[in-house]
């Protein structure tokens, strides 16, 4: 018998991977378009713009360990799912919210910074380090969100 609490908790874990992944997919796609524009004119810049394209992909990756950790603690991965109260289910769902929401929005924001960075590489390839640093700054908040989600999930053991 699957409890309502478990359903809520699993929904939180799945959405953490889903929404953060959606943000990253959208973001990597956007930077990929800009990168393709530069490579179309100058193929030698491929490696420089590739790094920028990869940056907003990390949020999707952060959603994955959060979901795996939650599902593992809930016993879903082992095949022996726990019975949870609604309150416990909501607690797991809340624990997944930081990476779910911050993951999505930081990926999109990072994509805009990375697209601007692609513009820097297009005009002045020697400054690509600065372009990467500026885009990477956005990553801080995704990492913080991941940390909070994991700490809370661990605390719910």
């Amino acid at each position, binding site marked *: 018998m699957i409890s309502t609490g478990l359903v809520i908790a699993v929904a939180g874990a799945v959405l953490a991977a889903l929404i953060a992944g959606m943000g990253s997919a959208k973001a990597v796609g*956007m*930077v990929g*378009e*800009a*990168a*393709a*524009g*530069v490579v*179309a*004119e*100058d193929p030698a810049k491929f490696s420089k713009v590739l790094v920028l394209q990869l940056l907003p992909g990390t949020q999707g990756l952060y959603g994955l360990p959060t979901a795996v950790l939650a599902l593992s603690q809930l016993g879903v991965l082992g095949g022996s799912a726990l019975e949870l109260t609604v309150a416990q289910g909501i607690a797991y769902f809340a624990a997944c919210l930081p990476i779910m929401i911050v993951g999505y929005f930081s990926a999109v924001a990072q994509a*805009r910074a990375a*697209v*601007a960075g*692609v*513009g820097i590489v*297009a*005009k002045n390839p020697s400054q690509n380090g600065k372009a990467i640093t500026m885009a990477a700054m956005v990553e801080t908040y995704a990492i913080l969100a991941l940390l909070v989600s994991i700490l809370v999930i661990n605390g719910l053991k």
Partner: protein
Amino acid sequence: MKDTEFAYAVARVRSNENKLLSSATVESLINSSDYNEALKLLADAGYENIDASNEDEILSKILKQAVELIYSSAPDDKCLDFLIVKNDYHNIKALIKCLVSDKNPEKLLLSPSIFDSKAIENALKTKDYSALPHFLAEHVREAYELVTKTMDGQLLEVFLDKKSIETSILLAKGSKDSFSVSLAELMCLIADLKIALRCAKTVKDEDFIMKALAQSSMVDVRRLCSSSLDGADALSAYVDTLGYTSLSEAMKKGYACFERACDDLIMEKVKDAKYQCLGIAPLVAYYFAVDAEIKNVRIVLSCKKNGIDSDIIRERVRVLYA
């Protein structure tokens, strides 16, 4: 249209901006000893194979390539139509004039254009305008009737120039992009000011001026007309009250100086696009950047051909985007 849809196009434009002439190169061109040295400097700066025989052809080709670049990379090329619709109206003028005087229009047609000039030519010959878009069909029909009734080439020019400006604003509004709309309105204001100044210098009557001026949201056309009727000084004073001091000052110095101030004002508006990484603005700015570059190269080469002093050339060249 979302600004993120322009990511590919803006990146391509940014890559091509590296090929634009720098201010230092233009300064070297101005300081070159003669026409041949200027051509050599241009060849070194990327204007491959340019010489006295193909100078005009190469410069036209560069602007055409810039338009092709922004059109081919934009997510919806219709959003850029407001920039080049003037070429279509130029082609309509050429086609009507050539049809009336039984001449071949081929060498007079401008490209790139939005509409196929063959379709316009066929419509004029058959008097069947159904193959053209509705608004264009109306303008072509009215222009043709006007010229066949009056046989007045100047009236035709005035009518089509006005329609060209109004169509440009309509197309910009159709794109629903605020930058394009404000730029089209600025272009309309500048076109109206040029008309008003020309009319003031050639002492045209009120009826003619009102027929020539396009409706602008940035200026009271009636007041502009009455200022034009009062002469160039009154017009300059009126332009000053609009807040365009640079244009007002340039008007006093002469038409060439005013033309330059107009181009520089547009460049000033589009220059902000240098700091935008998404949206239509960098594409539009690139078009004006190449246009300003070509104008400068033409000015320098023509001055060098005629042995004009470097200081005078420096006064004539436009502000660059790069």
